């Protein structure tokens, strides 16, 4: 588990250190008042539609948005819906139907709310963001167990596979999960108020409601739930539009040290 931390920490340190060695422009003492735009950025995750198109049994969409609250502080939110079908197969090399242990479909929606802190010091006129952030996330979902077999290493009664447990779909509904997310990401202006973004996330589930018969192996918005761990990882690639609403005086940047 610690490796997850380490890799994320490395990412974080890199982001911060590298954003810090870019000195702010030597601010000339000019008389013009400089302003920064404040407003709403909204967009969509590109990875989910692409994965929906490329992958069987997955559809997903995620809307993203943030609002510049203060010079470096943004309120941020994501809203999404995902559906994913998966099956657990014993022995990947021979995915015959008799080796399918169970097959299930998860569908549900999620919302993530939190803040981003911009660690990047822009030159005047630029509004790029390299951020670290946190989210509270909540997802409601259901699992449908499409089919299942009994795992049994003894093949005496079933030499060719596993004995079928059920092949009629059974739905486990009304499930939910709450988790906290640490986010590291970037939003870079590519052309006139349009931004490309990418973020990686480390989630920690602190509460979940699961069905007695079938645990939460995958949660919309959270991604794969690992055995014996509350951590999970996810990411997004976003395209968004920044809608400037008002301007505020630019906060003076610290002088570079000589």
């Amino acid at each position, binding site marked *: 588990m610690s490796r997850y931390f380490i890799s994320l920490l490395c990412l974080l340190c890199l982001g911060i250190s590298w954003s810090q060695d870019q000195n702010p422009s030597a601010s000339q003492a000019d008389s013009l008042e400089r302003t920064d735009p404040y407003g709403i950025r909204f967009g969509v995750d590109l990875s989910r539609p692409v994965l929906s198109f490329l992958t069987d049994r997955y559809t997903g969409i995620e809307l993203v948005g943030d609002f510049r609250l203060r010079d470096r502080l943004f309120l941020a939110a994501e809203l999404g819906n995902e559906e994913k079908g998966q099956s657990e197969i014993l022995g990947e090399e021979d995915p015959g139907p008799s080796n399918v242990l169970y097959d299930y479909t998860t569908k549900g929606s999620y919302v993530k709310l939190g803040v981003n802190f911009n660690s990047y010091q822009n030159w005047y006129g*630029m509004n790029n963001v390299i951020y670290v952030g946190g989210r509270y996330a909540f997802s409601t979902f259901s699992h449908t167990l499409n089919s299942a077999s*009994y795992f049994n290493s003894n093949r*005496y009664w079933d030499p060719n596979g596993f004995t079928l447990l059920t092949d009629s779909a059974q739905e486990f509904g009304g499930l939910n999960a709450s988790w906290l997310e640490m986010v590291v*990401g970037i939003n870079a202006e*590519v052309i006139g108020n349009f931004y490309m973004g*990418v973020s990686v996330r480390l989630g920690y589930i602190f509460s979940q409601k699961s069905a007695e018969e079938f645990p939460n192996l995958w949660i919309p918005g959270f991604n794969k739930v690992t*055995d014996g761990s509350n951590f999970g990882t996810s990411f997004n690639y976003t395209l968004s539009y920044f809608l400037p609403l008002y301007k505020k005086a630019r906060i003076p940047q610290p002088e570079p040290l000589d």
Partner: protein
Amino acid sequence: MHSRPFPIASILILCSLTLVSVIFMAGCEKDDICVDGNTPLLIVRFYDQADPESTKTVAGIRVIGIGNGAAVSSFADRSTLDSIGIPLRLDMGATEFVFISNSEDDNGMEIGNQDTLRFTYIPSSTFVSRACGFIGQYEDLSSEFTSDADNWIQSIEISTPFVQSIDSAHVKIFH
């Protein structure tokens, strides 16, 4: 307006970092091999009819599942044992076995003493882990014993009616 080579380089670096970390994390995942559980065998222990507290081995024990015809392979066939594990059917609530003591072939004919046993139960399932999925369990185990002119089995006792692990014996057979 100033311009700096910020966006493209940064995006490239962060994208590749994302990719690297995703691959790295995927590499840390547990192997998809089921080690967390298994459908239990029915553990049968043989006891001495004259001294019900002590176990007694059966020489040349062989068990054949009725409906399969082959000897059960979960223990060494025709060996001398005081305890065996045999698989129960999961597709129905009863399994019948022929228990043979002193099993031996004479010109292709079984000359050991054959006794027929029938175990009835309710198959159930429990989810163990991602890699294993569901395993079977057997609830409300009971046994029936067909008596014939020359039974080597004297009596049977169910000691654990809920078969969910192989840590302890489920059935005692006195002979």
